[in-house]
């Protein structure tokens, strides 16, 4: 154990960078697309805004379909799509596509919940004042949902990090890949250990940062 420290450090750093790359890009895509989807699902379910059963149902079913496929299978299934979008079926770039799609659906649900949690009476009070819906959405709904939204970004970041570890199975790189190839297939327990410790530290860091931001911005008690 720990006989080739320089190589271990080198490998670990590269894997860490790959994980970071996959997580950051996928998370950004998921927040934007998932946030939008979640907002649309909320708006089409709410009478005060744009209630529309048909559109609402279509989006709900789409989200449910993606959410019902285990990530590993979704990833394999979507690799041809990766080839189409990013031009490759292997490596971190290829994994970003299924990772983003899966977490977009995941975050859409959470974002929808964040919007639904906003006190309906508050929304109603501002709608009743004659303010245009668009300003109620951007200036009341968003700020009121924001703390919960940030909390759910934290949850999604951890989900992306967890799923990114599975990328190793299709040559995606990252900490999960490192742990799998060296730690599992080559019985290098030291590598496995380092990966686990790094993942624990990453999760703590993300959670801690997220909670910190939420408690700073939330004025509701």
């Amino acid at each position, binding site marked *: 154990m720990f006989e080739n420290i320089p190589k271990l450090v080198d490998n670990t750093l590269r894997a860490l960078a790959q994980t970071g790359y996959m997580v950051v890009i996928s998370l950004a895509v998921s927040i934007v697309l998932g946030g939008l989807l979640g907002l649309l699902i909320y708006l089409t379910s709410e009478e005060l805004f744009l209630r529309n059963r048909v559109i609402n149902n279509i989006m709900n079913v789409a989200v449910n379909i993606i959410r019902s496929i285990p990530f590993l299978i979704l990833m394999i299934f979507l690799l041809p799509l990766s080839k189409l979008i990013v031009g490759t079926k292997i490596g971190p770039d290829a994994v970003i596509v299924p990772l983003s799609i899966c977490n977009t659906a995941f975050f859409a649900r959470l974002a929808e919940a964040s919007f639904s949690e906003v*006190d309906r*009476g*508050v929304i*109603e*009070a*501002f*709608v*009743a*004042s*004659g*303010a*245009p819906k668009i*300003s109620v959405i951007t*200036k*009341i709904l968003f*700020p*009121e949902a*924001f*703390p919960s939204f940030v909390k759910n970004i934290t949850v999604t970041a951890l989900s992306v990090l967890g799923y990114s570890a599975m990328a190793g199975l299709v040559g995606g790189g990252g900490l999960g890949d490192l742990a799998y190839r060296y730690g599992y297939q080559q019985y290098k327990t030291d590598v496995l250990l380092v990966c686990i410790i790094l993942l624990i530290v990453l999760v703590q860091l993300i959670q801690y940062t997220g909670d910190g931001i939420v408690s700073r*911005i*939330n*004025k*509701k*008690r």
Partner: protein
Amino acid sequence: MIEFRNTSVSFRQKKNTTEAVRDVSLTIEKGTIYGIVGGSGAGKSTLLRTINRLQPVTGGDVLVNGESIIGLKGSRLRELRKNIGMIFQHFNLASNKTVFQNIAFMLETFGWSRADTENRVTELLRFVNIPEKRDEYPSALSGGQKQRVAIARALANNADILLCDEPTSALDAETTLSVLELLRKINRELGVTVVIITHELDVVKSICSRVAVMENGRVVEEGDVYDVFSSPKSEFTRLLIKRTQNFEIPEGILSEISGDVLKITYRGESAVGPVLSDIARETGADYNILHGKIEYINGIPLGILYVNILGSSELRETVREKLREKTSEVEVLYNV
């Protein structure tokens, strides 16, 4: 002026249709403080919401300042809503905005400049008497203060109608009085028509000039507050008033009593005169006061007295006659 013309609202849920408001016709004159009372589920909240179209009607018409509002859409609906402020039982302030931001939103969204907004909010906060809370978040305010912010928000765009949905039901007795005082000031100083729905009759008694009583979606009685409370016409109103008067003669006293037990209602002028003692002196009858109170509705006294009259049956009869002449109503509760 707000007019309901055969207004009905029904909700369809799967196979069941609930008629929340049934065929209501009412006129709320400009500049009045109008109360709508009734138990929970009576439809009063639904009726109130039809005024600013938060609740679409399913039958009849609703007119605000002479104009039918049931078909309004888009910018014309927003224009209507801009002129109708609304406050709620649970205040409904945005929790992540300061007091200033909650009110300023109403102005900025209608194109007010930064400087004008500053001045207007300062003016409003002074009017509702909490200028020092400008930069607080709602979580740091008491219930009464939150309702004051909500009132300032509702009046920001110079609304001429203020709809109040159980405005004091989440407040303690003392805060209730101060919020009602503020509503009265708004009505008096700004000429705002105030419509209050509540299940608390005391609220209506203390500030409303007219009242409608609702039961099962219908208005069962409507009129001047004093008239409705001093001589209710519908059975439901009578029951409602009796429940709040909350007076029963204890059994123990009844079993020891002889003679008549009368409930005497005095209205207006006669409520302050020494009617009972005059009659007792004249006739020589003895009396014993069991319970009594005088309350002021719209500044006019309404007295209710429970008395036990002693003496021979002829004497008691004479007393009853004389009381009937000089008071508004004499009801014989027991005759032993």
